[in-house]
């Protein structure tokens, strides 16, 4: 029954590849920094303290987006486990956890031209020194707010609200068509 906003993936090539990431659990987490330590204990993994930092594990990504804001992206397999974690968090600390699994859509972008292509619409400096591997940031791609996470020299993950998904994928399609 699960159907995402975008299904297409761009043709695979050395220079650029764009794939839609399948079902994910996503939680928006808001709490004061004072509670982070406690939350870490309950979660059983590290929670980054500074904006732009990411803790990534095999099936879990935890990114700090604001002084009191995190997004947690988790493989669906861990649903039951996370149901419990969330219940415990809710009961133990002052926290706001909102399920936004279906709000976002994720893209995996990679290839030799990936940085150039993202820079077609994103105004951030994506040189490794300014946007190192393992960093994330909310920013924009043209008029669309996105979340950008670099997981490799030539590999990024982009998240946006689902209704903007087709625009993002159309955009990358046009870029690839125009440049190849």
């Amino acid at each position, binding site marked *: *029954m*699960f*159907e*995402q*906003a975008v299904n297409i993936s761009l043709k695979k090539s050395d220079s650029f590849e764009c794939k839609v990431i399948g*079902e994910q659990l996503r939680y*928006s987490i*808001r709490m004061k920094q004072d509670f982070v330590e406690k939350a870490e204990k309950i979660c059983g993994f590290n929670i980054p303290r500074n904006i732009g930092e990411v803790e990534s594990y095999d099936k879990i990504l935890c990114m700090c987006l604001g002084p*009191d804001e995190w997004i947690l992206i988790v493989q669906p397999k861990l649903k039951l486990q996370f149901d419990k974690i969330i219940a415990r968090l809710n009961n133990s600390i*002052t926290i*706001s*956890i*909102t*399920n*936004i*699994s*279906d*709000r*976002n859509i994720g893209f995996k972008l990679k290839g030799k031209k990936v940085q*150039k292509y993202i*820079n*077609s*619409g*994103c*105004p*951030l*400096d994506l*040189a490794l020194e*300014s946007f190192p591997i393992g960093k994330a940031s909310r920013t924009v791609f*043209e*008029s*669309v707010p996105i979340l950008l996470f670099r997981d490799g020299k030539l590999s990024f993950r982009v998240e946006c*609200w*689902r*209704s*903007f998904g*087709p*625009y993002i994928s*159309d*955009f990358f399609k*046009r*870029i690839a*068509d*125009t*440049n190849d």
Partner: protein
Amino acid sequence: MKNFRSKKGSVINEEETIKFSFDGNEFSGFKGDTLSSALLANGIHLVGRSFKYHRPRGILSAGSEEPNAIITFDRGEGKITPNVRATTLEIFNRLQSFSQNSYPNLKFDIGAFNNVFSIFFPAGFYNKTFMWPKSFWDKVYEPFIRNLAGLGPAPLSEDTDNYASCYGHCETLIIGSGPAGIAAALAASQTEGRVILVDEQSEIGGSLLSSSNKKIDNLSSEQWLSKALNTLKKSNNVKLMTRTTAIGYWHDNFVALSERLTDHLSQVPEGSAREQLHRIRARRVILAQGAIERPLVFNGNDRPGIMLSNAAQTYLNKYGVRVGDNISVFTSHDSAYETAFEMCDAKVNVSVIIDLRKEVNADLLAEANSRGIEVHLNSSISRTYGKLRINAFEVYSPIQNKKFIVKCDALIMSGGWTPSLHLWSHSKGSIKWDKSISAYIPDKANENVCCIGACNGNFGIEKALNEGNSVFNNNKKYVVQEQSFGSGVVLNTIPNYLKKEKQKAFVDFQNDVTEKDISLAVQEGFKSIEHVKRYTTNGMATDQGKTSNLNALEIASREVGRSIEKVGLTTFRPPYTPTTFGTFVGYRDKELFDPVRKTPIDDWAVTNSAVFEPVGLWRRARFFPKNKENMDQAVARECKSTRDSLGIFDASTLGKIEIVGPDATKFMNLMYSTSWTSLKVGNCRYGLMLGEDGYIYDDGVVARIADDRYHVTTTTGGAPRVFRHMEDYLQTEFNDLDVWLTSTTEQWAVIALNGPHARDILEPLIKDIDLSADSFPHMSIREGNICGIPTRLFRVSFTGELGFEINVPSNYGLALWKILMTEGAKYRITPYGTETMHVLRAEKGYIIVGQDTDGTVTPFDAGLGWAVAKKKKDFVGMRSLKRKDLVNGVRKQLVGLLTEDPLTVLAEGSQIVINPKQPKPMKMLGHVTSSYWSECLGKSIAMAVIEDGFNLMGTDIYIPMPEDTIKAKVCKPIFYDPEGKRIHV
């Protein structure tokens, strides 16, 4: 046809011959030629007609400063470009180009009639005429003037090319690749950071490409250039970009580059972009834009065959083209001597140099002498001859009062040099007047930027190189063998025995602004240089005064009697050269213009022939026509089925915000006029949100999910601003509250089921929620599962029928919709769109914010006073509701209207009066906000806001329409099931 190719040009590939056409005539040139160099090689000077007087014009320059040689570049349907500078257009096989602004042809142009009467069209003439008789303006004069407008042809069909856009970053951005820019790039390549070197021309090299006989570090300038290029190409931190113009310089070192990718290609690869916009953020910008030569302003200076000395030099050295066989020189600057000598050395006959100066460096005179060139000092040119090209001129020596005629086929001129301060000025760097070179040079920087080389007033290759180098504190010193760049004078008047009225000395060639025009402007009181510009249009043509602004300034300063520094320059504005709209658009056209936001159920709507409407960025199904129904028919059917049985509606676009935290209720109480304290978990309430001004801002149903958790809904269009409004108050005013906001609009797909069978269809699908009226009454919410999908199920109704809004995670919305369509078949389930939704809610008198309210309506005006909590100590908008005019004034209030003839549907937006017979302007009471045919009631219904409406119940009012006046009665705005029985079943 004679060939004017003299030697091998530095950018010319003689192996590759290229055929092209101009005005339908075939010519050939070489790879590397611009249209102008190729035309000159074929002996063609006449290429266009001027704007106002249609005077024959030739090629003035060899670069993007060209005012005269403006042509149309035609690549076929949808690819016709007007106003292209022949001096920058690179030729390719089968290139087609046309002259502009002439009819029937370039050589014989009827418009030249204007030239004969030019004395009647001085600057600003149109302000003085065309006023009588008054009626002639609209019908005769204005159409006439408008018909004369414009240069090149207007586009008639859609541009079929693609464009691209991107952002870029670097530590050093160098603009201009002459010796200064290259030296800076070489030095920068040794640093850590990224370097971008751009040049608008097809090759790197700037003036090095047009010079000869120079030695840099003991290499010929060609050798040095190719060595430097090699080094740069090998440095992996340097990016070289040719055919790339820096068009503008914005705040914080943000520079836009326009890269031309295909205009020079004969075969354009399928799909590739024609131009690309690069938006570069640089840590440091280095401007090495060079300098532009100034024409001399003398009588008859606009004849084809008269050109800038540096242009002639460039045609010779860069393209191997001599611009004539019998050349003369007119100058007030040493640099024209260099051109003359190089011409001579290339076996062109240079007969005379007319120099305005009394004295000239003896070495130059000796060199001229050795080449057999006559030099006339302290002389001037008083007239030129030749119909479509110069063939002679008259020399005038004011001291001796001597005149004589010299024959020529080209005249080259130099009035000195103007450093290119365009981008520097965009960046708001200040400028100062440098007497020694009679030009403005950069003064104080406003960004991390510097100017080097000719653009900083430092002429000469050696200076340029060393200045470029020194920017990076590099110790290297370049040594160049070159003729000294020399000096010159700038004269604000050129001696002539003819009276000024008898002269035509052009300052701005394209806009036909003469010296007289500038004098006239000043005489008429336009003393500021900005006024001179606007009154005469000097500097406003497609070259933006690159060759004319300084000359105009000199003349204006003379006329006003104030020094140049005091008169000042006009403002430089982007773009540096005219830039295609497509460049600014980049990728963002068609489907990439604005995103179209579609709901999870959109696909189904498409396959079921929905007609859509745009709402903000969203598109929503407006109605679902069946069998060629029109909108009214479809809506009537959708309404009826919903009330009779069951309707289904995609409400996914409603804004949603999850508000969570221990202070959630406190926050809600502050943000809404509604009170939330008593709302129990599991219940919903209508929330009314006001602006601080007390007017209705937004509304929506809010559910309390837990003590500390609210599920808020907003209007579709209002979602972004409501979120911002809340976040703003939370962070700046109520920041002591422990509560957080998360937008969940797109987390949930929302399917609304309305109608008597709404419960029947759900019952078999939901196991874990008791749907009975008692345990799940109207305005409540339950969490559970539907068909195994987790849901937040609202029992609410925007139709007045039994209603449910099923929220499920978006990725399951479509699947659930399809199930409901199948399951609903037995209830004749009917999908309906926004139009039906509007009718159904109007029958119940529910408002739509933005339609029934417009930002000037208070809750009380809208009859929603009950949604304003009386006891709350504070909420946004509370104080404003007590303002004088909101309490005492006559307010427009929301009422219902029933037309006298129930079949008449009022027009939305139509105006209401008490007395339809009054003369205009009529006193209007208000207007119809919503109006529909109600199929269920068998009559039309309407809502309206009218002055003092609550007191007018039962009164007759009138709606004057163009055809007739409609009578209606004011009533309560609720037409259907006023007791609300159906909603509670």
